[in-house]
């Protein structure tokens, strides 16, 4: 079993503190949802853990299986088993999904080890079948001219191929209509297993109807203010974030 521990994490962008004393322990096989109003630091948390250069860690630590990853480059973190599914994935013109994934898979091999192309394509097609993705999809350039739904499916396909220990899914539901949301959720559910831990960041409860989390955390002003199970999400949905803000103000 693997474990990702985020310990008293503080993150700034420039001079501005965004994430303030964030704590969370994520085990393999668990799905955690982080909810919260806009601007509360959810996406910042995900990008900082993945190693985005614009985000400065001002305190705390992130441990993957007991080892701090903060000194590692984003690509080293990825090869160590982290995966960030982007809210806004970048377009890479001229690079097909098949070639991009192939390079990413190759990057995980030891030096001098050559990728077995036949085995790679076999695995790619198996994953695509699992996610109900058309074969033609992989000959398109990564995210180039993709619809919102296609971009998110492309993220899920990459996640399936790279088989991370932990996946951070940043607002995977944003920009998706209900049909696209269902397809993406099915894909994630198909991947759920005891070896994968998922941290799902979302603004809305509706994603959680499709991907049912084991734990729900509410994030506000840079840290977790409430934790519970799926019922917390429903309560939040019913009462709105304003309710939470008032409660916290009184406390």
């Amino acid at each position, binding site marked *: 079993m693997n474990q990702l521990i985020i310990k008293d994490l503080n993150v700034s962008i420039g001079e501005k503190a965004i994430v303030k004393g964030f704590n969370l322990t994520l085990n393999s096989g668990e799905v955690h949802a982080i909810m919260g109003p806009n601007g509360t630091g959810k996406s910042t948390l995900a990008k900082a853990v993945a190693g985005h250069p614009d985000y400065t860690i001002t305190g705390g630590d992130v441990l993957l299986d007991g080892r701090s990853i903060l000194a590692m480059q984003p690509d080293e973190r*990825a090869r160590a088993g982290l995966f960030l599914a982007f809210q806004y994935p970048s377009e890479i013109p*001229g690079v097909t999904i098949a070639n991009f994934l192939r390079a990413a898979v190759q990057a995980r091999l030891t030096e001098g080890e050559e990728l077995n192309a036949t085995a790679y394509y076999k695995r790619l097609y198996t994953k695509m079948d699992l996610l109900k993705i058309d074969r033609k999809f992989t000959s398109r350039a990564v995210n180039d001219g993709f619809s919102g739904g296609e971009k998110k499916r492309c993220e899920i396909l990459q996640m399936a191929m790279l088989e991370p220990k932990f996946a951070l899914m940043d607002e995977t539901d944003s920009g998706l209509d209900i049909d696209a949301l269902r397809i993406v959720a099915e894909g994630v559910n198909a991947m759920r297993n005891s070896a994968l831990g998922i941290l799902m960041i979302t603004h809305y409860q509706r994603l959680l109807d499709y991907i049912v989390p084991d734990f729900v955390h509410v994030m506000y002003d840079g840290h977790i203010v409430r934790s519970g199970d799926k019922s917390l999400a429903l309560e939040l949905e019913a009462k709105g974030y304003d309710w939470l803000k008032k409660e916290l103000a009184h406390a």
Partner: protein
Amino acid sequence: MSNLSATATLETATAENPVVGIDQSRGDFKYDVAYEFDAGTGLSEKTVRYISSVKKEAPWILDFRLKALKTFLDKPMPTHWATKDLENINFDKIRYYLSSGQKPKRTWDEVPADIKKTFERLGIPEQERKFLAGVEAQFDSEAAYSNIKEIVAKQGVIFANSTEALREHPEIFRKFFGKVIPTGDNKFSALNSAVFSGGSFIYVPKGVKVAQPLQAYFRINAENFGQFERTLIIADEGAEVVYMEGCTAPKFSTSTLHSAVVELVALKGAKIQYITVQNWANNVLNLVTKRGVAHEEAEIKWIDCNIGSRLTMKYPGVVLKGRKARGEVISIALANDGQHQDTGAKMIHAADETTSNIVAKSISVGQGRSTYRGVVHIPRHLKGCRNNTECDALLINTNSRTDTYPAITVRGDANSVQHEASVSKVSEEMIFYMQSRGLTEAQAMSLAVNGFINDLASQFPMEYSVELKRLIDLEMEGSVG
């Protein structure tokens, strides 16, 4: 000139810096070489006579050279639009002709480790590595070359180096030589006309379609590596030929000025494709004139890839002389730190219903600078002419620079022209995205660059596009911390 005797001169090739202010030790390395024929430094009538006599040329060629020398001396540098860097050329310090008959006295063990590594990473065959590193004077390609020469000779194709062709086929050579690019076209075409040596001559007879690209077998021999090569390719009516020059291995040239002239003639219905992939050492000034004439329904396509050099100025052109002629330039330029790629295309429409297409992509890395310079000319009296021009520039970091100077003259209302230009950047977000998938920063950049040129690179022959990709990987590796 002090030494007119063929064997007396045994000076070292790189004993002095041919271009003031250029660090010869960068991207280059030195050996003491004994050359059999050496024209010494500086350019005068004596130099030209010496070259001509060593080559045992006919009097008309010597005349041609001497007239060219005068034109060269009379012509000013193209300073009003060109980079000031040209002023740094000291023509008196350049060696205009060297020919080595002996095996150099050095071993593979003496080749610097990083150079060996580069060859290895590029997948250059063992034999070629030795030649490129200057360990062997002559790459042992003669057998393969004679073989291909014999095969195409059965179809009546003449495939020879230009010195040989001038001797053996003066009747064809003379008819076309210097007609597409006259001596006085520019200062450097005049220089080439005065001191040229090496290069290829190809004549493809009527209706003959040469199945295999020429040159792959011919690509390495001492003269072809010359600095002033001269190539002339003639495809007779309905003939087809593909020619490839260069290779992606860095050239460790002993000279810092490379000034070639390439002329193509495609007669009625003929097709010529000319592919160049070059990677010059960082100290080379690469000033090349390339032009083709396409007659009725003929097609000329330049595929030109420029990497390396300190300055490259090259604008392959097509004169569309006959009705329905077609011209195309596909150009890729990569300018890394300290390099300036000033490249582009010229399309001169001179008949009705002629079409031309220019697709130019440039990549600027670090302090590298790319310039696109293009000319499209369609005069008023023509009908049904079309041109399409696309220039795309990719910037790898904020210090890079790119400029586009398209000069499009289209007169009359029966012609159409289309121009698109774009500048894009490899953003930090894109690199982070790729890194978050496990690719290193260098791998990410390399993938982004390869993606940018992907549609053009796929037009290269397989072996070249593979080499090109490897080369870009290497360039990107060097560009990140």
